[in-house]
């Protein structure tokens, strides 16, 4: 049994101290130790994007990340975006455009969309489609998801 490693990080705005096994994935830490089950386990190898989170504002597959590497960093999950005022237009657009079918890919889609909009505030279809390449929707509901993100980009730009 490996010994635990002490880390401190900020998770969804809350400074957090944790002792984690070094081989644990960031996804397992979030879901099993912190109870943040909004982040989903899809493929476990970085192909599907269901486990997407933001680390220091940049999107990553949490299934590929080692939890010990959270040390000193700022982590945002779908639970953080759920109460993020700046993401109101994004969440609303997913609802209004019907960008949700079974819902399993939705947390990853929303988190990756947040990153796409942060990088491209005026994102159009091309930026959105390329930005979401790493997120699979098993219902194949891509059209409405892409529409939702483009709508959110327009709503954000109008609000500014």
């Amino acid at each position, binding site marked *: 049994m490996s010994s635990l490693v002490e880390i401190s990080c900020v998770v969804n705005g809350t400074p957090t101290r944790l002792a984690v096994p070094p*081989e644990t994935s960031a996804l397992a830490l979030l879901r099993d130790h912190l109870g943040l089950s909004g982040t989903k386990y899809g493929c476990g190898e*970085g192909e599907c994007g269901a486990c997407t989170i933001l680390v220091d504002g940049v999107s*990553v597959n949490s*299934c590929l*990340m080692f939890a010990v590497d959270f040390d000193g960093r700022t982590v945002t999950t779908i639970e953080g975006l759920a109460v993020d005022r700046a993401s109101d237009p994004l969440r609303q657009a997913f609802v209004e455009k019907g960008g949700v079918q079974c819902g399993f890919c939705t947390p990853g889609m929303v988190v990756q969309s947040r990153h796409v909009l942060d990088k491209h505030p005026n994102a159009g279809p091309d930026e959105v489609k390329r930005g979401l*390449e790493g997120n699979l929707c098993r219902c194949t509901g891509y059209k409405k998801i892409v529409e939702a993100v483009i709508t959110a980009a327009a709503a954000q730009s109008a609000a500014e």
Partner: protein
Amino acid sequence: MTAIERYLAPAGLDDALAALAGGNATILAGGTDLMPQINAGKVAFRPILLNIRRIPELRAVEVGQGRISIGALVTINELKDNPVIAKAVPLLAEAADHFASDQVRNMGTIGGNVANASPAGDTLVPLLVLDAEVELASATGRRSVPMAEFFTGPGRSVRRPDELITALSLPLPRLRTVSRFVKFGTRPALDISAVSIGFSATLDGGRLSDVRVAFGAVGPVPMRGRATEAVLEGAALDAAIIAKAAATAQGEVKPIDDLRASAWYRRELIHNLLGKVLSDVVSR
């Protein structure tokens, strides 16, 4: 699974090299290859898990004395978006744009892509045609190894277990350099290439010199196409030379059948894609 006895995340290169000295450490950078390989049982943890991500000098991008040095920790998205890299070695930035997904590009590093030594690694073909050298450091010294001599088999290289890749060093391309990278797979994103081709040469007065051709996913290691280069070196790119080069390339690659493509199909792809690349160079 072997248990990790110690986790280290040093802030200095010397500390990292000291930890590596016994050859008992698993190196962690982006994690995008390490985690799936551990989960699939393809690699086992060594007693020390060495996270090198806290070492600032491994992130440096420097241009000087006719070369660009790209730190091992530079991520694939940084290759794509860093204006210094895009200006100095556009071929590398272009290849980065074809790499996996945004999330993986945010994590994965150029040093990791080289260390992992996949025959299909997306940065390796452009690094080969750009005459990159792999900068290696250990507690006992430093050395640099040309990319063309670095790989020894799938997942294997001349890097010793006590050595760390610190950077990739590339000569700045000369004036009138033309370069291309093409990758063929079943979808643009997240696909491991069925084949990839890199091409670079000086095009002056209609003739090619300093020709470099490299192929990915058509042999045990990413390979230079030496016979194809010989056909093109000093030649004027006309239809006959393009046809001869494409046929030579088709003959010199050594692909296998796997789930992504048959060996026969890969040879056809190499023939047709190289012809297309060379025709495209002529038409510009």
